[in-house]
């Protein structure tokens, strides 16, 4: 069976290896360049972890590479579409399931081998892309301090491996249930995007209850340097009461109005996830998607043993 799985999918392996090589070359070369510029900028005496003020100098002209890194958000989807969805659906499309299911191999064993290889491919694919992007983002993380924010969080660390697992098992399940490649592919894209948006926008911030604190109005560089994920910083209070439409006191017009506001007794309610929770959140995010993947694998096996060919 392993021979068959390799013989059937070696083309996909070759394409994946080519794509990874191309991505590696682009990210490694540009990463080396950015790191060098960042080091040089630090050597001129500016403080490290400056959160903001080095950015324009270090990243000038690198917009293309930032776009590529942003595009790796879609990397898990590729493996779900081109490896997961056709895994079973293509066999049914071409009737070859009637050939393979009447050899001396049970459907369960057949699916076990195919899914095992697909899952391993997804993990390798996700891990390599995530490792590259995480390394590449080192200077950006140090300067912008935004790795906990959606967008950066989703392409670094171990979360992308979870997305790849989810995408490939979603593809397999969709193909098994829908039994036709193109509709299964479309369903994979739709469900993957839907679940990712839902969890990123509404669920992730509740993994651990956020910290809420009252701070003087204005920017908080010390907080930013801790790599926090700020969820909201809009509400102003004065003497324990919410100020819905703060009017700037007469004496506070001009550049120094934040300190003026704070001396007038106004406080800003900041809700955030501390930067120290970054890896806990990465772990929870990975776990959520791994659990979803296990459910999808179970669904595929249940379905394939019950449905007729």
């Amino acid at each position, binding site marked *: 069976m392993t*021979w068959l799985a390799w013989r059937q999918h070696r083309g996909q392996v070759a394409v994946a290896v080519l794509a990874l090589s191309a991505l590696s070359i682009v990210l490694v070369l540009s990463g080396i360049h950015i790191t060098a510029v960042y080091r040089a900028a630090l050597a001129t005496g500016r403080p490290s972890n400056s959160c903001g003020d080095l950015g324009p100098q270090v990243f000038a002209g690198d917009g293309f590479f930032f776009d590529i890194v942003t595009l790796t958000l879609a990397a898990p989807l590729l493996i779900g579409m081109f490896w997961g969805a056709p895994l079973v659906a293509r066999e049914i499309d*071409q009737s070859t399931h*009637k*050939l393979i*299911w*009447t050899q*001396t191999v*049970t459907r369960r064993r057949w699916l076990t081998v195919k899914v095992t290889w697909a899952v391993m491919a997804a993990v390798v694919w996700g891990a390599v892309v995530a490792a590259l992007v995480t390394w590449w983002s080192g200077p950006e993380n140090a300067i912008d301090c935004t790795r906990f924010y959606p967008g950066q969080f989703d392409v670094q660390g171990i979360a992308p491996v979870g997305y790849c697992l989810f995408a490939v098992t979603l593809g397999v399940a969709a193909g098994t249930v829908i039994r036709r490649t193109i509709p299964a592919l479309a369903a994979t894209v739709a469900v993957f995007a839907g679940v990712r948006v839902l969890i990123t926008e509404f669920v992730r911030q509740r993994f651990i209850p956020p910290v809420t604190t009252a701070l003087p109005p204005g920017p908080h560089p010390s907080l930013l340097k801790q790599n926090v994920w700020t969820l909201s910083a809009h509400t102003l209070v004065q003497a324990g009461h919410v100020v819905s439409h703060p009017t700037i006191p007469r004496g506070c017009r001009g550049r120094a109005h934040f300190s003026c506001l704070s001396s007038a007794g106004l406080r800003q309610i900041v809700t955030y996830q501390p930067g120290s929770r970054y890896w806990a959140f990465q772990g929870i995010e990975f776990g959520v998607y791994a659990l979803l993947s296990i459910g999808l694998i179970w669904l595929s096996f249940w379905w394939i043993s019950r449905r007729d*060919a």
Partner: protein
Amino acid sequence: MKIISLPAADAVATWELGKRFRSFWALQDCSVTVPAGRVSALVGPNGAGKTTLLHLLAGLSAASAGRALIFGRSPGQDSRFLSDVGFLAQEVPLYRRFSSADHISMGQRLNPRWDGGWARARIRSLGIPLDKQVGRLSGGQRAQLALALALAKRPRLLLLDEPVAALDPLARRDFLTILSETVADAELTVVLSSHLVSDLDRVCDHLILLSASRVQLCGGIPEILGSHKVLTGPREGTPAVSRGHEVVNATHDTRFATLLVRVNGPIRDPAWGIRDASLEEVVLAHMSRAAAPLSAAGRVR
């Protein structure tokens, strides 16, 4: 379900087997037996349920009613059953990107009794390149390869769905010869389906006739031929014949009637001329009766 004791000699036995797709019964009340070592022709018009029956026997789909046993074993997901049964689907499924040699290697790795040497020799003798991608072979070559793969598995029961449909007459004859040689050499039972019996009566010694989702006839071909006669005689004599025998099909002109009859005992009335029926006549008579169940002859069962 009642306990069924099965004579070991039956390769296929089904009891009231049925398959329903939503509200439509593709196969109903199907009770047939195929003794081991027979080559059975499964014939019937399009949509009669032939493919449905073969899928049930091959374990590709699950029955909605009744049950089937293959060498005493229910079709399902166990390796004893799977290794005993070979199946070739109507679509002639093959991996387009694989070569013939790849398919033979695949069979080697997935089946306990695989005869790869035989398969390679067979493909070579047909002049099919072993290393060419299957997608570039002709339809006839693909059908030959698929048949060779089904035989190389060395199953005890071989189920073939319209195996000769894609072959030209010469290849058809060649394939049927190979099939009868293999049946003689190995202990092989075959069920092969076709629209028409004329393709198959040279190699088949058993017949299952399906029409309108039901079994119309099942048995050894010599027995079927022995019990069917064509009678020619006076038109007004038809009711007398149908009292003692089963009139399967009747054609009348102004004075004479030609009846295809399943006989119960000898026909002594000298008014009737009697001759043997050909298999094709018997099959067509039963098919047309099933297709028009409300005609006068159709009421007689």
